[in-house]
C-alpha cells in the first residue's frame, strides 16, 4: 500500500463523515472539524493521559502474550509429545470468546490493571499459540533433515529454524487479533477505573453528553488500534524482509 493512497482514503472517510454530519444535523453526530478541534484541545487536558493508560495496558498484554505463547506454540509444533497432550486442550479453549471471561477475571484478579492486562493477554495468547504451532509443524521435513545433517541438534534447530520461522506467525497473529484486543480493552475500561480511553469515551458520551469530546476519545482509540497495526506492519518489513522481495 502506498502512503498517498492511505492519506487519500483518510481524506475520503472524513469527507463521508462530514456529509453524514450535515445530513443528520444533530448533536449526536458532530462534524469532523469540530471533533478534531476538541481532540487537540482535549489532548492537553487529560486525553493524552487516558491514551497513555490504554496504551500501557494493551502493550503489556501483547508483550506478555508473545513472550509466553510463542515459546509454547514452538514447543507444541516442534514436539510430537507436547502436541499430543496440549493440542486437544487448545482445540477446546481456542474457540471460546475470551470476552465472556471478563467478569470472571475481574472477580479473580480485582479491578486494577492486572485484570485488564490479563484479558488482553488471553485474547492474544491462543491466537499466537495456534498460529505459531501450525507454522512450526509445517516446516518442511527436508529443511529439518538438512539442518540435522549439518550437525544441528535440538537447540540449533530452535535457534536456526523454529525461532525465525515463528516470527511471521507471531506478527500475523498480532495483526489478526489487535482489533479484538482494543475492542475488549474498551469493555474492560468501562469497569471501575478513572483512566483509559474506554472510561473517557463512556464518561463523555453517557454522563456528560459531550459528544465532540466522546468522538475525540473514539479517534484516540482508533489511533491506538491503527498505531499497533502500523507497528506490526513495520516490524514485519524489518524482520521478515524476505517476504517482500518479489
Amino acid at each position, binding site marked *: 500500500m502506498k502512503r498517498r493512497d492511505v492519506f487519500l482514503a483518510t481524506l475520503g472517510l472524513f469527507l463521508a463523515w462530514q456529509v453524514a454530519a450535515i445530513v443528520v444535523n444533530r448533536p449526536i453526530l458532530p462534524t469532523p472539524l469540530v471533533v478534531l478541534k476538541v481532540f487537540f484541545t482535549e489532548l492537553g487536558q487529560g486525553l493524552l493521559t487516558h491514551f497513555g493508560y490504554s496504551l500501557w495496558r494493551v502493550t503489556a498484554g501483547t508483550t506478555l502474550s508473545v513472550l509466553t505463547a510463542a515459546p509454547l506454540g514452538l514447543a507444541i509444533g516442534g514436539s510430537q509429545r507436547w502436541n499430543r497432550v496440549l493440542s486437544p486442550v487448545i482445540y477446546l479453549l481456542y474457540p471460546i470468546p475470551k470476552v465472556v471471561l471478563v467478569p470472571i477475571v475481574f472477580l479473580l484478579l480485582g479491578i486494577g490493571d492486572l485484570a485488564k492486562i490479563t484479558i488482553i493477554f488471553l485474547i492474544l495468547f491462543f491466537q499466537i499459540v495456534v498460529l505459531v504451532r501450525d507454522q512450526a509443524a509445517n516446516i518442511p521435513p527436508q529443511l529439518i*533433515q538438512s539442518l540435522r545433517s549439518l550437525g544441528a541438534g535440538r537447540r540449533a534447530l530452535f535457534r536456526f529454524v523454529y525461532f525465525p520461522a515463528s516470527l511471521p506467525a507471531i506478527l500475523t497473529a498480532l495483526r489478526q487479533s489487535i482489533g479484538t484486543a482494543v475492542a475488549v480493552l474498551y469493555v474492560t475500561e468501562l469497569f471501575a477505573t478513572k483512566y483509559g480511553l474506554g472510561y473517557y469515551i463512556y464518561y463523555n458520551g453517557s454522563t456528560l453528553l459531550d459528544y465532540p469530546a466522546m468522538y475525540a476519545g473514539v479517534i484516540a482509540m482508533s489511533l491506538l488500534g491503527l498505531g499497533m497495526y502500523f507497528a506490526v506492519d513495520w516490524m514485519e518489513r524489518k524482520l521478515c524482509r524476505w517476504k517482500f522481495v*518479489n
Partner: protein
Amino acid sequence: MACPAFFHMITIRSLTFNYPHSLPIFQDFNWEVQRSETWAILGPSGCGKTTLLYLLAGLLQPTRGEILIEGQPLRRPRPRTGLILQDYGLLPWATVRYNAELGLRVRDFYGPDGTHAPLDHQSADVTPWLERLGLAEHAEKFPAQLSGGQRQRVAIARTLALHPDLLLMDEPFSSLDAITREDLHNLTLSLCAEQNLTLIVVTHSIEEAVSLGQKILLLGAAPNSTAHIFANPGAGTGTHRNSEQYRNLCAILREEMQRPSLPSPEKKEGENETP
C-alpha cells in the same frame, strides 16, 4: 587406531531396515564404496533409495546390521558427510550468504565439541565458495529470488564450506531444466574430483545415473537383499554422454527396471562387484 585411509569409505554389513510396523526395505544387504568413487543409486519410487541415503547420513539407524564410514560405526550425522536434498533445504528467510554459512554457523553455535562440530572446527569465510559457484553477485538475495539451479548451488556451497569427504545427494537436480541439470552435473563432478570427494547421488532418472555414477547401484522392489551393481567407468569424461557405452548402459538399465522383479543374484553382463 589404524589410518582411516585403510578402510573403505562406506561398508554396509547385513543391513536390515524397516520403518515401524512395515515390511523391511533392506534385508541382509551388503555394499561397499571406495574412497573418491562416484556412485548413483537408481530405482523406482518406493524402492528405498532415499532411505538408504538417510541411513548413510546417520539420520536413520539400521534395524539390524551395521553401517561403517571409514571403519567407524555410524550413530549420528557425521561432520564430514554432506547431504543435499532436492529442495526446501534452504532457509527461505535468510540470504544466500547466510544460507551458505549455515553449516559453519551451526558449528560456531556449538563450538568444537566433537559431536555437532569437529574438534578442530574453525569459522571460515564462505566468499570463495560463493565466487567458485557463481553466486557472489547474489549473496544478499533470498532463495525465492533465485532460480532452481542457483538454489542448488547455494546448497552445494553450504555443504562444501564444511570440507566434507563424502557427499550425499537426494534427487538434487530433478526439478531443474535439462540444460541447468547438465551444467550442474558437470559442476558436481568437477568439484568432487577437485575436492577428492566420494559422491553418492540418488536418482530415479536413468540418464542422470549414467551421467554421474562411475558405478550404479540398482535397487528394486523391497526388500532389497543384493546390491545390483553396474560399472560405468566413462562417467565424468567429456564425451561420455554421446558415447555408445552410455546409450547401451541406459538401455540395459531401462530393461532391468521394467522387469517385474530385479535380476537374480547371479552375475549379469556389465555387472561388476569389485573395482
